[in-house]
């Protein structure tokens, strides 16, 4: 490590980092209560816990974003004070946030160079940065073109840039905040490879997650937090998913599955040869044919980017159909706006819940009425009926177990799982006839997953026609009556749940039709 390192103060490599008795008190809340945590060189240490268990707070303390009320941090036995991310970086700690901190309109090399002094004083040294970036990319298997603009890159590639950025700054210890939440299954595999490469190069990794199988698959040790306290810290060897789930939640979790046979009714949703364009103007749907009947769940499996998002948007009226027809309840709805589809009993749990699902500056109650704000019981003659809205919101908060300080809290302040519950409460309380659920459990914790799955099954019992689009194959397999596999904008095949085995679906997902 040559020029780029020269600017950093001389320091020891992090061989052992300890956090001892960390307590962080926010007004009225103890976010971390005497938490001990440590990570050694070359180790992947998982930090596991439900949303709000105190994982982020602990890591923000380590990265210098918060100062703890009590406790100390030691590196190689020496106490250190970390008062800002700048201190953390100087000590060799790098953090990869869930939401990337990259400038879209700059290139990879420019992003990496951002904020670093140039080796040529007043003239940029982007060529040096690019060369060094390529070297690092080579060593760690993080393939990305230094000249590419960030906006041109897929999510997985952007994450690689973030990691390269931290590597470039000489980080020994990486804090990865739910790094897989935004990745496709393939990208997850690649990412796991990168992590292994990083530990082989003697880097340490703190892996924040609530996905149990990832902990089992990739981590050496695991620390579980619950309600701000450390409830366990042990080697991953010999732990089962069930053990971890129990530690995390405090009681047993069994994800619900379909058990009853479908009570199939009439066809509620029908697509005929539907074509549509993607955001970039390429053909995203190339003739989709699909039927969903009342009382069944049709799961849509597929590698991300094969038209699933566009499929959901086309059905809900958010994207234009260029060719083909869509029928809801036997009525043609091709080209109808979302408002009309709403009247036909269409409910939608959008994939991008922060963008499409909620208005984060609006309160929980304002979000609850989003789809019906102009109708009884929420409004009369153009006036909002605040008292009734409050009553209904409070009831939904209880019914859907939305954990919020009050109905007047801005929805954006809630945790991911609870935001999804707000969406769920709004969509399901209308007893939908057709429900489109796109990635309904992405990025939410296991308690919320259980809850969401249960609600989908309840809706099925109640006779809704449900289209479940998910990249989580386990989710599709355990909830669907039939499984449709998408590949390059077409439905490769639709299998009955009993014939849908992983191997077969895997081939279909790759575009191969089994003999």
């Amino acid at each position, binding site marked *: 490590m040559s020029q780029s390192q020269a600017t950093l103060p001389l320091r020891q490599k992090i061989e052992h980092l300890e956090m001892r008795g960390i307590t962080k008190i926010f007004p009225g809340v103890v976010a971390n209560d005497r938490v001990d945590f440590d990570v050694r060189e070359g180790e992947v240490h998982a930090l596991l816990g439900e949303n709000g268990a105190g994982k982020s707070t602990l890591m923000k303390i380590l990265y210098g974003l918060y100062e703890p009320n009590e406790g100390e941090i030691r590196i190689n036995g020496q106490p250190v004070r970390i008062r800002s991310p700048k201190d953390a970086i100087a000590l060799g700690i790098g953090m990869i946030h869930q939401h990337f901190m990259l400038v879209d309109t700059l290139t990879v090399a420019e992003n990496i160079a951002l904020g670093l002094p140039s080796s040529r004083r007043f003239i940029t040294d982007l060529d040096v940065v690019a060369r060094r970036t390529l070297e690092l990319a080579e060593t760690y298997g993080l393939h990305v073109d230094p000249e590419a603009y960030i906006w041109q890159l897929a999510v997985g590639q952007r994450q690689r840039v973030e990691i390269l950025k931290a590597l470039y700054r000489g980080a020994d210890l990486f804090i990865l905040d739910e790094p897989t939440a935004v990745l496709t299954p393939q990208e997850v595999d690649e990412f796991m490879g990168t992590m292994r490469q990083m530990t082989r190069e003697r880097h340490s990794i703190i892996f924040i997650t609530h996905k149990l199988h990832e902990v089992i698959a990739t981590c050496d040790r695991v620390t579980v937090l619950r309600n701000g306290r450390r409830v366990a810290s042990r080697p991953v060897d010999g732990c089962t998913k069930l053990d971890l789930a129990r530690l995390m939640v405090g009681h047993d979790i069994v994800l619900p599955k379909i058990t009853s046979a479908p009570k199939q009714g009439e066809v509620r949703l029908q697509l005929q040869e539907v074509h549509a364009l993607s955001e970039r103007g390429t053909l995203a749907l190339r003739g989709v044919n699909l039927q969903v009947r009342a009382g069944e769940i049709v799961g849509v499996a597929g590698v991300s980017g094969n038209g699933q998002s566009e499929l959901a948007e086309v059905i809900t009226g958010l994207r234009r159909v260029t060719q083909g027809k869509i029928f809801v309840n036997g009525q043609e709805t091709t080209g109808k706006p979302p408002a009309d589809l709403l009247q036909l009993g269409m409910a939608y749990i959008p994939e991008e819940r922060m*963008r499409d699902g909620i208005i*984060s500056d609006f309160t929980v109650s304002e979000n609850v009425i989003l*789809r019906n704000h102009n109708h009884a019981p929420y409004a009369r003659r153009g006036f909002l009926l605040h008292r009734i809205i409050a009553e209904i919101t409070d009831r939904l908060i209880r019914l859907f177990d939305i954990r919020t300080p009050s109905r007047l809290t801005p929805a954006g302040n809630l945790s991911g799982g609870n935001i999804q519950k707000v969406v769920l409460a709004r969509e399901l309380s209308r007893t939908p006839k057709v429900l489109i659920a796109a990635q309904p459990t992405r990025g939410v914790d296991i308690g919320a997953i259980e809850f969401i799955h249960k609600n989908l099954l309840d809706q099925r019992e109640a006779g809704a026609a449900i289209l479940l689009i998910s990249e989580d194959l386990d989710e599709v397999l355990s909830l669907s009556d039939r499984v449709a596999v998408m590949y390059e904008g077409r439905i490769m095949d639709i299998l009955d749940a009993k014939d849908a085995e992983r191997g077969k679906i895997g081939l279909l997902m790759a575009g191969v039709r089994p003999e």
Partner: protein
Amino acid sequence: MKRFFARVLNARQLDNFLPIVAALAAFVIGAGMLLLMGTNPLTAYRAMFSGAFGNQNALAETIVKAVPLLLIGLGICISFRAKVMNIGAEGQMIVGGLISVAFGLAVDWPGWLALPLGLLIGFLGGAAWGAIPGILKAYFNVNEILSTVMMNAIAVQLMNYLLGGPLMDPQQAQALGKLPETARLNEAYHLARLLPPTRLHAGVLIALALSFVVYVLLFHTTLGYRIRAVGFNPFASRYGGIRVPQQVVIALLLSGAFAGLAGAIQIYGLNYRMITDGSPTGFTGGAGFNGIVTALFGGLHPLGAIPASFFFGALLVGANAMQRVTQVPSSFVTVLNGMVVIFVVSAAIWKELRERQRRMAFATETSRLAELASVSETPPQG
């Protein structure tokens, strides 16, 4: 000391006082400038204060100045809440004034009919002028900042032409030194004067009543809900079944309507004729721009706009008085007003940044709070 400052700067309560602190800061810098010019700032500011509040007439003038600021500020509250940047209140006010004065001069009806109709027509004229950039933005994706500013230029030229030509006072038309102004409106059409001999007119009551109307509109009607929703997140609004382009048009249209009404009230309540000095702000007195600052100063809240408009009215009236008393150049008054505007707008931006930062820090805390609240529901662990 450093700690003390840090604590003051981080206090949540500071947010509410930020605009006031910003305005004060502008005055402090202004004091420095006065010193450099060899004027005692205390004398100058005292003159300013008494010019704005010193006696009944001063107070009345302050309120008279505040009326158009409040009306335009109300409109700005609506459009900015929808994230529609209406910079065109100047033009909308001019068009509202032109059309209402043309109506008032053309008809010969009883006052109880002509006065409300004249004001309504001004309201509608402003609405029409606002609707044009609204439609351009909503359906042709034309940036509203550019289009509203250009609409201002068109309105100014229209005014200069009409007041110097077709609408010109016939007496003026025969005089030698022609002034760009219309004839005087029929006595019966004038808005009542509340406190003669001051110029305080009933327009202030209309503006105050409309503040409450806009408050109800924004926070208690479905239309207000849609406007705010679109401003916060057009994607989620569309998914929620809201026709986003329609709300954009409505927001700009309403915003223009309030500016148009301000123009009509300026004529029916104050001057009884439309008059300009040939400069672009000759008729409006810059109310179309100052109204934006008023709205921002009031936190884009229609009730907050009331004290805000009073403050800026006082500033404008007081500045004139200061100039008379202390002989500071008139450009200093412009500079002082400009500084107040810059500081207040910067404070508004800073406030937003602070809120965003706080939200990021607060998110963890809130979810924790909620988590704690539900601990009792969790079964005891074995």
